[in-house]
């Protein structure tokens, strides 16, 4: 590093004296751009634009296989479509404006014998380029918001309730069981055997099921009502393949509704990658091992899913009896605290 800097400085000093010498020789005594500078740099501008735009197109094509595969959720398919429309629109604007910008710099380079056009304004033009972007943007907003409303509202309440719970630096998932209701939980009840702080006195907790390994399963084609929560700092539950994420905030439940459409097995085929797995990543800086906070997500056919769920333990079964009593008594003392 030091050496690079040193070398760089040396090179610069050399260049410096060369350039000064050159300008002295050519009888040019000011550091103001001369004809030669204008033409060299404006050619540079055009080259930069042409090569730059070409490289952008090239990269976009070349990196396609690295991008996320097809969206594996109902809303994800629609938002991907929207994203592509947006890219098309901004891509067109991008090309037009960048080309004009760099081309004008080349085309209108300085000429002593010419005057620029004195053209301070033109209200009609200004009106046009205020109104046209407004219309285009309105169209984008309307389609975007329609999608947003669809995915955040108006879905049936019967989605399967699943809790995703973040803590430094891992994830847990809890399934609500046959009653489709999560039992109450309270952070002061957290213990080694009750990592979610579940209040066992709540009948709704009796059938709750917790994943035992660092893996959660989801049934394909079943609407899921996610409830997110955190124990310590803010995390963010990011499911890149389902095109969604939601912050996990201590002291507050956040929710998201979605439906997976492609099983893990099918996705292995689509991506031609035997090792493919869905993943849940933490996407909000949460501490030194933030980058390592993940959970494997497996999407099953509904029947496989129920089989898997049967093999997982009820939370209440995991608790030793002594602790169970302790829990219930603490829960009753704090219950009015919770109610607050």
């Amino acid at each position, binding site marked *: 590093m030091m050496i690079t800097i040193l070398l760089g400085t040396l090179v610069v000093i050399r260049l410096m004296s060369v350039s000064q010498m050159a300008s002295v020789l050519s009888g040019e005594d000011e550091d103001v751009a001369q004809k030669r500078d204008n033409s060299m740099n404006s050619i540079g501008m055009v080259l930069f634009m042409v090569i730059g735009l070409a490289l952008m197109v090239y990269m976009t094509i070349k990196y396609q296989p690295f991008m996320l595969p097809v969206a594996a959720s109902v809303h994800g398919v629609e938002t991907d479509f929207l994203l592509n429309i947006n890219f098309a629109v901004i891509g067109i604007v991008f090309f037009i404006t960048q080309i004009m910008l760099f081309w004008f710099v080349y085309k209108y380079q300085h000429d002593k014998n010419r005057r620029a056009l004195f053209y301070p304004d033109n209200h009609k*033009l200004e009106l046009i380029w205020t109104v046209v972007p407004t219309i285009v*943007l309105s169209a984008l907003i309307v389609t975007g918001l329609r999608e947003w409303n669809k995915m955040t509202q108006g879905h049936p309440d019967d989605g399967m309730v699943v809790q995703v719970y973040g803590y430094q630096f891992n994830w847990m998932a809890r399934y609500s069981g046959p009653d489709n209701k999560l039992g109450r939980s309270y952070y002061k009840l957290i213990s080694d055997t009750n990592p979610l702080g579940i209040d066992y006195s709540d009948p709704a907790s009796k059938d709750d099921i917790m994943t035992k390994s660092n893996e959660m399963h989801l049934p394909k084609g079943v609407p899921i009502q996610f409830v997110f929560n955190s124990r310590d700092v803010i995390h963010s539950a990011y499911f890149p393949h389902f095109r969604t994420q939601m912050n996990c905030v201590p002291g507050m439940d956040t929710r998201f509704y979605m439906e997976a459409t492609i099983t893990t097995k099918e996705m292995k085929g689509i991506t031609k990658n035997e090792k493919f797995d869905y993943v849940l990543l933490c996407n909000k800086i949460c501490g030194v091992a933030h980058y390592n906070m993940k959970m494997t997500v497996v999407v099953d056919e509904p029947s496989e899913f129920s089989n898997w769920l049967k093999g997982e333990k009820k939370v209440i079964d995991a608790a030793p009896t002594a602790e169970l009593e302790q829990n219930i008594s603490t829960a009753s003392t704090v219950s009015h605290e919770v109610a607050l």
Partner: protein
Amino acid sequence: MEVRDNTHSGHAVAHDVHDHGHDDHHHDHHQTFITKYIFSTDHKMISKQFLVTAILMAFLAMGMSMIFRLQLAWPDETFPFLESMIGKWGKDGKLDSGFYLALVTIHGTIMVFMVLTGGLSGTFSNLLIPLQVGARDMASGMLNMLSFWFFAASSLVMFGSLFIEAGPASGGWTVYPPLSALPQAIPGSGLGMTLWLVSMVLFIVSALLGGINYVATVINLRTKGMSMTRLPLTVWAFLITAILGILSFPVLVAAALLLVFDRSMGTSFYLSDIFIGNVPLDHTGGSPILYQHLFWFLGHPEVYIVLLPALGLASEVISTMARKPIFGYKAMIGSMLVIAFLSFIVLGHHMFVTGMNPFLGSVFVFTTLLVAIPSAVKVFNYIATLWKANIVLSPAMLFAIGLVSFFITGGLTGIILGDSALDINLHDTYFVVAHFHIVMGSSAIFGMFAGVYHWFPRMYGRMMNKSLGYLHFWITIICVYGVFFPMHFIGLAGVPRRYYANTAYEGFDQLININELISVFAIIAGVAQVIFAFNFFYSIYRGRKAPQNPWNSNTLEWTAPVEHVHGNWPGPIPEVHRWPYDYSKPNAKEDFIPQTVPYSQTPESNRPGDF
């Protein structure tokens, strides 16, 4: 002719008041080294102090980014020099994962606040407001001096926080609680975070002192004839920026203060129901999301506090070097005002995935996309200014054009991020990193470079070497696009930001080549800045002597003598007779008519609307 006396109250304390009573003389009073270079109240000197401090801080922050780019591109290599450089954080040549976050945090904070807010506004508002409105100095030289010294103290505290045992603040430049509130959560949230907060409060004091001064100067100290609609766009930009800062920075103080209470006095503004380090905490009833609302109430205006001065500088440079009036002067002012207003009501676009009410989210989508309209107008106006122009490509002009290019690229991806339905997938990924580095970081830095190259003659009375300027520009623009453009792809591949390594998911393995490419560009870009630093410091002492008006510009600063005098103009302050953009006026003798030339002297070129 009206002569305004606006010398500095602060100075008068140190010197004989009579010294300053008459501005009509070039007063060469005896200043000591201390009053001239250190506790100076002269806006030109303070401007240079801001600039040099910002350059030093920028090199520091850039050095940090090079270290973490090494980690991202070559996660399996060891770099023995790291251990000698950063000691225990680089043990055996491996960067520590906690220190990675510390570097990211301090890098972001320094770049956003010290370089692009303090450095940019501090340098150019100070240099140009008095010189371009025709004032002898800032409204209050004393406050101005304090503004710099609070800034310096703030920078020093931030720098000092790098050397403490537990490491500096590491919760990201937005320092969201609870992470930033609990030392149990991350070591940097101990003393490091305290120092971060102290530094920020000092910084805000500096920004407010400066801002009040800028506003007062623009409102009160304009020379005769300098109506608001004859102000150069630079001054308009600085004025609006200062107002934005005055309105939004206090909210950050409030946010920081509540955080201090939560950290040290057991209050629960931002904390609730936390179980950490195997114990439940007593905090209850607070909301971490409250902090985010407060933070982004500053945070979004902040991005315009960074950007508007850069756009102002670019407007001036582009018009001057294109030898053509800026297209749509009034529309430029109007769009800045609209942007400034809207910037207070878009903060929610940083919070679409915090569980905010979806309807509220929709409102923020709407306001966010509204901001894109005045932004688009500005871009079109720049392009229209170049159309049929007569463009002189000075290094400053190249950087100004680079700014417009970045503003387009980054502004367009903002449209995607502003769409909540799309943002839930892209939020906090590298796509966002690409977006704001291009639109805010690179645009503003390019604006700053344009400003330095263009006004260096006015600052130091010498020219910067143009060939080195060109070299610097070309390497920098290629590398900046090379660094930030590919990040869009990494973001679209689903990689979260602030990851020390992309090992969590095997799908990310294939991105390593892109990361290497980025890091190579980043390192070249970093080294290229040495060219700039060399040119800058070398030219201060050895550059060619600057002529009075090297770019044939219209604005007032070029009528002041090259050798700095206290009070800017040795004689009376010049009077202004026209707007600043009479370039290439038909039938005029030359292709520029300075603001000081009355219409009575230019009958050949006057137009019907001119009076």
